[in-house]
């Protein structure tokens, strides 16, 4: 068993090293605001089509409604997810996953690990899968999903997705009660930094902005613009008139879909979307996600014949 980690970053490093050792490409976070690691094109788009894939990465994620001004011991509007996506899902994925827990210092002989039914669905991505939340001594430490459908497309082959809520997992492993007290780097480093040193102030700033200050007219307008741009990109002909090549712009269009989704989350946090409108907005984002998925499967990476 690995040595017990002492800081937040050691846990991230241990997970990256472990999954790199299992043959995953260790990617970097996507450079856009997303609500969860699933939104990274390395998951959403790469789970589509027939080409094999294996990637692991940290994804900063934003959930504006979860902001608590940095006061709540475990609720944050900005947090980290660690994401693994392997296509096709290997037969020993559960064992591989348990290996990752050992890699961060969880001794399988001393803890109670359980796979508890939890079916995953993302109405905004038009995606669903079956799997579990994984419990360690009664605490949910990961989400484990076999993707069945993404962007309205059946997944063939099926991808296995693992999502770790890093703060919560790390707090458990390190025995920390308040997220802001968690050591970010080594406690004996010349400049020891806690999670709070890094994020307390930004949590406060974003909570105020998310809940009370964000300009909702502007956000509504940006939503419309992202939606329009996404559609416009996909309506362009497949053949690029300048280079004469087939270039389906699935990724640039998908960026606009991600934007629309995040703008919707911000509007939701501002409380300006009514219950009935909510479904309509979610439906609009889902339509974009489906269009992007349709486009991606026509590309080479999406498995179309080159």
């Amino acid at each position: 068993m690995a040595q017990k980690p002492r800081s937040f970053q050691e846990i991230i490093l241990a997970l990256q090293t472990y999954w790199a050792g299992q043959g995953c490409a260790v990617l970097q976070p996507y450079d856009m605001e997303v609500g969860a690691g699933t939104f990274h094109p390395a998951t959403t788009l790469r789970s589509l089509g027939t080409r094999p894939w294996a990637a692991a990465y940290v994804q900063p994620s934003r959930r504006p409604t979860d902001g608590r001004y940095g006061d709540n011991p475990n609720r944050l509007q900005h947090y980290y997810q660690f994401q693994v996506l392997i296509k096709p899902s290997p037969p020993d994925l559960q064992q591989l996953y348990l290996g990752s827990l050992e890699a961060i210092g969880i001794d399988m002989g001393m803890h109670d690990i359980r796979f508890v039914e939890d079916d995953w669905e993302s109405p905004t991505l038009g995606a669903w899968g079956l799997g579990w939340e994984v419990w360690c001594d009664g605490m949910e430490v990961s989400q484990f999903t076999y993707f069945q459908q993404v962007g309205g497309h059946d997944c063939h082959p099926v991808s296995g997705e693992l999502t770790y809520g890093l703060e919560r997992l790390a707090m458990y492993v390190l025995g920390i009660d308040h997220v802001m007290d968690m050591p970010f780097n080594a406690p004996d480093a010349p400049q020891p930094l806690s999670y709070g040193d890094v994020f307390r102030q930004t949590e406060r700033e974003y909570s105020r902005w998310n809940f009370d200050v964000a300009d909702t007219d502007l956000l509504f307008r940006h939503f419309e613009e992202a939606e329009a741009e996404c559609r416009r990109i996909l309506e362009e002909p497949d053949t690029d008139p300048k280079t004469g090549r087939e270039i389906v712009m699935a990724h640039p269009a998908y960026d606009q879909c991600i934007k629309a989704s995040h703008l919707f989350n911000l509007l939701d946090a501002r409380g300006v979307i009514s219950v009935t409108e909510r479904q309509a907005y979610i439906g609009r984002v889902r339509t974009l996600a489906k269009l992007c998925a349709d486009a991606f499967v026509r590309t080479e990476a999406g498995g179309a014949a080159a």
Partner: protein
Amino acid sequence: MPDLLIELFSEEIPARMQSRAAEDLKKLMTDGLVESGLSYASAAGFATPRRLALTVEGLGERSPDTREERRGPKVGAPDKAIEGFCRGAGVSRDELEERESDKGRFYFAVIEKSGRPAAEIVAEVLEQTIRNFPWPKAMRWGEGSLRWVRPLHSILCILTTEEGAEVVPLEIDGIHAGNTTRGHRFMAPEPFSVGSFEDYEAKLKRAKVLLRAEERQELIWHDATNRAFAAGLDVREDRGLLAEVAGLVEWPVVLMGEIERRFMELPPEVLQTSMKEHQKFLSAGKDGRITHFVTVANIETADEGATILAGNQKVLSARLSDAAFFWENDLRIAKEGMGPWLDSLSHRTFERRLGSEADRVARIEALAKELAPTVGADPELAAQAARVCKADLSSEMVYEFPELQGLMGRYYSEAAGLPPEVAQACEEHYSPLGPSDTVPSAPVSVAVSLADKLDTLSGFWAIDEKPTGSKDPFALRRAALGVIRLVLSNGHRLGLLQTIGSANGEADAEDLLSFFHDRLKVHLRDEGIRHDVIDAVTAMPGNDDLTLLVKRAGALSDFLKTDDGGNLLQGFKRANNILTQAEEKDGVEYSFGADAKFAETAEEKELFTALDTAEPVIDEAMEREDFVAAMGAMAGLRQPIDTFFEAVQVNSDNQILRRNRLNLLSRIRRLCLSVADLTRVEG
């Protein structure tokens, strides 16, 4: 006779699906085996989180040989017909036999099938079973196309005889059946082989897997109550939770821990709900308080569960901190009179066309006030209760635990210093929720509960959103049954048509009333009252008064079960048929003027006397709504009516006699119909 053992080993099966799946496996396999000609002595299915298992004892060794003779076309029939027959029977033309019969010479096919060995049939039926298994939700994995509830890893399938065990050759999407399985995921992960069901169950136990769900449940309950008893506590019984927990573990290890004292101020229901919903803990305590939790681990550890218990305790504390935070915030708002919650009701849409929750509460208030005198409640208290009954929907606790709605309303109303009847109504006004749920009897609770349900029903009727077929998204059937049970169990006299009119003038009150009648039929059917009996009473005036309706139906139902009742019904039907035919033929209505002086026979006279006696008794009883007395008096008519029909010919050639007799029958009809519409009763 061989025994069959099957195990389908997979990744974790959702707890809620396990017992059904074990039954389905048994049913599909045994049905399939029998259909293929294999009999068996007994069978049983089992499930754990990672496996479905089936044992079948005394299976036939092979299916019997069969021989079937089929007659084909006549000799000399067109070739096409003969070829078609051969194809259908699966024989070649030169195998056909020609035989003489009384209708001529025909071709015959003799189809002989030899029986097949059990292994072959088992393999075939098991493949069918796996491919068509009725999981509520199934999935694919990896590159395969097989569907199972979660990835299927191995199949164990053996036939055991006195000579030993044999693997049934079978392959499904790359999975080859064998004779091995695995034990507990962490405590005994190595594969081992088994030779029979007894061997399988015993080896599993050694490998830290209890195969039987009942055994796991009993063990959990036994250990939990023992531990609680040792600490002077009781475990709160929750069968559903117990079954679920037994479906999450293969080797239950019961651990009990204490809830931190700082959470003792939380209502016990909050503790119990939070522990159950989030962590699937059983609750333990004494004297109505909950002080401890019971968690069930799936592993034995060197420190006897200390680390696991500490971890669970920590997670529980984090969860309860949230709950305590909600409780304190909510109490502050409640003590200040719930203002912000009441305000926020206007921002919550109930239904687009029916307005906000605030609009709805205003309607419920008006209706509750109107209904109050009828149900014996103080109108002002009913109105006050209606105003606050939905306030807790905006509380943080109910946002987190929607199943605590109503109950939190009671706590918060008490904190706000509202009268106890109001607090009680906040909790009870959702009841009854189902056919066996307790029905509130406190007048203020009844007024608000009725108003809430009638507002919902008439509102959705007004916008034409009625339940259709299996679709009832707004649970309107349940609401109607709630109204029915509230009215009946409290014996309230309520004119539904008028009440629906007050609730929403745009609702089609008659149509909604007939919906109530339909629900009432279902409700009374469970109490043994036939639907035609209900039809007979809903056809009577005052049919929107459910209490009256049911009283009448009950009396009629009991009456019809008696000998007199059944025969009187026949007598009435006979009288009514003769009368109706005569009225149709003559084009007049015989409804008046039967005169005893035209009575010829003793039997006829006797009927006059009987009717003269019964009529005032029945009319008076009906006046008092004493249906039992009315029907008792009707029972007295059975004998004279029977003898009348035996002795007297109604359609006499003498027109005066005939008219008089028809008018006499009309008295029977009027009298019977004044009690119930007997024409609608079957039989």
